[in-house]
């Protein structure tokens, strides 16, 4: 039984690991002019970093291999159809007399011929329907939620049996991480009220960690490198901090005790600004780190077919693989570090908000 499980695991790793190689093999076969190559690489990286309605795994010739995801539009009623109907932007989809076209990752309303009009900056001016589709990123979030659910359910089950039970299987990995969040982040920063915030901190930590690790698999997720996701996560921290703040916190923002009055007037706007810059930096840090990591890894993989004439095939593959391997280890560290930093700073901000000051 265990052997079967292991074999399946190894097989899955091999199959998933083969994907980028397939991509590269195809890119090599279709390599054109050298100047085209670097442009193509740039486009490919940008395309990977963006959200998409179609889950593409790799390219086989001109055909993209993957699976379509459901498109959900609210435009004079609910409209649900498969994103495969767009045929990667080549086809116009008609639903209840309204035509839709897929263009550069967004869905636009068009006429029957699918014309898209542009303004002078080459941005489409067509109207957009309200888009609630299950995109690649939403799919990634669902997958992360599912993985976390499975992992933590097994952990919770062992505690149900009795307090002295050791968690089995994957739960044994998760328990120290939970304790780490509690003992290293929550208790030192928040103090005796830490229990209220543990659910939030644990959710944020494990969500970011899972998504970062998923982003390193060749499936091609870039969820935490999407600014909308990080804005949302930072907003949660902002809301928790603002709602749970006690009157000492507000006093220290608007009318700091123990400071001369002229300074109070100068400091109050700065402190108010600080309320917003803290979640803003949280948002930017996670987004920029993950985006930078993904771009650099993809750029290093691109060495394979960028320097083939200078270094020969073996040389370029060797250098690329070596550099990518080293960077992947660094990114494993970054994946954990960013989850750690986000949770750490969140608990620090929450701790500032709920701290009871000695009265001056």
């Amino acid at each position: 039984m265990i052997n079967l499980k292991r074999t399946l695991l190894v097989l899955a790793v091999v199959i998933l690991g083969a994907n980028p190689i397939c991509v590269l093999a195809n890119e090599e076969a279709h390599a054109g002019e050298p100047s085209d190559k670097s442009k193509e690489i740039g486009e490919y990286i940008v395309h990977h970093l963006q959200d998409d309605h179609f889950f593409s795994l790799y390219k086989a010739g001109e055909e993209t291999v993957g699976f379509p995801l459901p498109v959900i539009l609210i435009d004079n009623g609910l409209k649900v159809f498969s994103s495969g109907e767009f045929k990667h932007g080549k086809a116009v989809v008609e639903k209840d007399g309204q035509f839709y076209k897929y263009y550069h990752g967004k869905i636009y309303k068009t006429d029957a011929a699918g014309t898209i009009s542009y303004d002078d900056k080459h941005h489409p001016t067509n109207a957009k329907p309200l888009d609630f589709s299950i995109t690649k990123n939403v799919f990634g979030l669902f997958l992360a939620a599912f993985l976390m659910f499975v992992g933590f359910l097994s952990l919770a089950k062992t505690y149900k049996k009795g307090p002295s039970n050791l968690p089995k299987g994957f739960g044994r990995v998760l328990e120290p991480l939970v304790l780490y969040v509690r003992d290293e982040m929550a208790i030192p920063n928040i103090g005796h009220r830490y229990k209220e915030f543990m659910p939030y901190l644990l959710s944020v930590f494990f969500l970011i960690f899972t998504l970062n690790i998923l982003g390193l698999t060749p499936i091609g997720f870039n969820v935490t490198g999407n600014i909308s996701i990080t804005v949302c996560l930072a907003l949660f921290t902002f809301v928790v901090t603002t709602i749970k703040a006690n009157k000492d916190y507000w006093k220290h923002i608007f009318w700091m005790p123990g400071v001369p009055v002229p300074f109070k007037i100068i400091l109050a706007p700065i402190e108010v600004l600080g309320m917003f810059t803290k979640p803003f930096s949280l948002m930017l840090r996670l987004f920029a780190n993950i985006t930078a990591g993904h771009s650099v890894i993809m750029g290093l993989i691109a060495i394979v077919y960028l320097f083939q004439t200078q270094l020969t095939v073996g040389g370029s593959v060797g250098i690329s693989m070596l550099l990518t391997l080293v960077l992947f280890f660094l990114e494993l560290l970054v994946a954990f570090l960013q989850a750690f930093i986000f949770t750490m700073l969140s608990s620090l901000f929450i701790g500032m908000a709920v701290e009871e000051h000695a009265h001056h």
Partner: protein
Amino acid sequence: MYNLIGAGLIVIGAGLGLGKIGGSAMEAIARQPEATNKIQTAMIIIGALLEGLAFGALILGK
């Protein structure tokens, strides 16, 4: 072109900052090895704040 020079300047600044943080942390750990964990945590937090600043500047400069 100019934004590349700007990016270089940002990286120089961030590098100086990180070097200073790392150097001081090393000295502090050498002086008090029993406080290593606390010093490391503080170091990472300051490093993250600096990083947020640098990344913000890099993105705004782009």
